[in-house]
């Protein structure tokens, strides 16, 4: 049952992305930005948390989930540690993902070469 919720939530978020890709002139990077920022905005409004409870990974794996983690981290850190949390919270919560993306990404880029089309 949980898997169905995950599937539907994740699929629906991706479907929104696909509709944006097909019907607007937005390019992929812009869509990524829109999704991350909207995840953060929804979290501030308190609307993303219920979605995460319902859809689990279906809500956290897509990019709005990244925005959600960033915003949630900042908000929690502010409540716990005060003003400095504004700056440290978001990055602390997502440090592992960003660290992996940069570190592993750099290594991958050094190892592989660009390929022509097949």
């Amino acid at each position: 049952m949980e898997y169905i919720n995950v599937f539907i939530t994740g699929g629906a978020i991706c479907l929104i992305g696909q509709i944006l890709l097909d019907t607007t002139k937005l390019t992929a990077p812009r869509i990524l930005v829109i999704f991350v920022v909207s995840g953060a905005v929804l979290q501030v409004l308190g609307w993303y948390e219920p979605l995460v409870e319902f859809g689990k990974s279906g809500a956290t794996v897509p990019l709005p989930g990244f925005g959600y983690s960033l915003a949630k981290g900042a908000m929690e850190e502010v409540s716990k540690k005060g003003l400095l949390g504004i700056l440290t919270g978001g990055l602390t919560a997502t440090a592992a993902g960003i660290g992996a993306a940069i570190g592993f990404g750099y290594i991958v880029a050094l190892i592989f070469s660009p390929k022509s089309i097949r």
Partner: protein
Amino acid sequence: MSNDKKLPDIGTEQDPKVKKQKAKAYEEYAKQFTPKPKYAANGLKAFVVGGLICCGAFAVQNWLMDFMKLEEKEAGTWVTVLLVCLAQLLTGLGWFDSLAKFAGAGCIVPITGFANAMVSPAIEYKAEGPVLGVGAKLFSVAGPVLVCGITASVIAGIIQVFR
């Protein structure tokens, strides 16, 4: 003989206001010759692939929680790390663009799309060296995502202060 045929009056307009109107009219005109994307098929593929990626992530997370005895939050972080590394590896192997061509937003919108957006320009500009080539281009597409995301989190933190 076509000596006295008029030339089409497209694109010669200088007045910016009229130019804009004409551009819009021409865009509409050009649209009728452009095939439409296959909305239904693209949407279905995005939905299914996106859903499957999330389910896979959920399965791994459950496994980490059940067998490795990790907490939910820690397991979730590991899943993110694994997805990022997997997408970057697929990008390096040159398979990710084929997947994205099929699934579209189905693999662009999950965190895999973000990982791909980092590595792809870095590989591409490798010839420009490890610092300004790979190092700088790692952020050419994904940089804006991080900048906007982190800025949003800072704003969220500020809002939290006043709550």
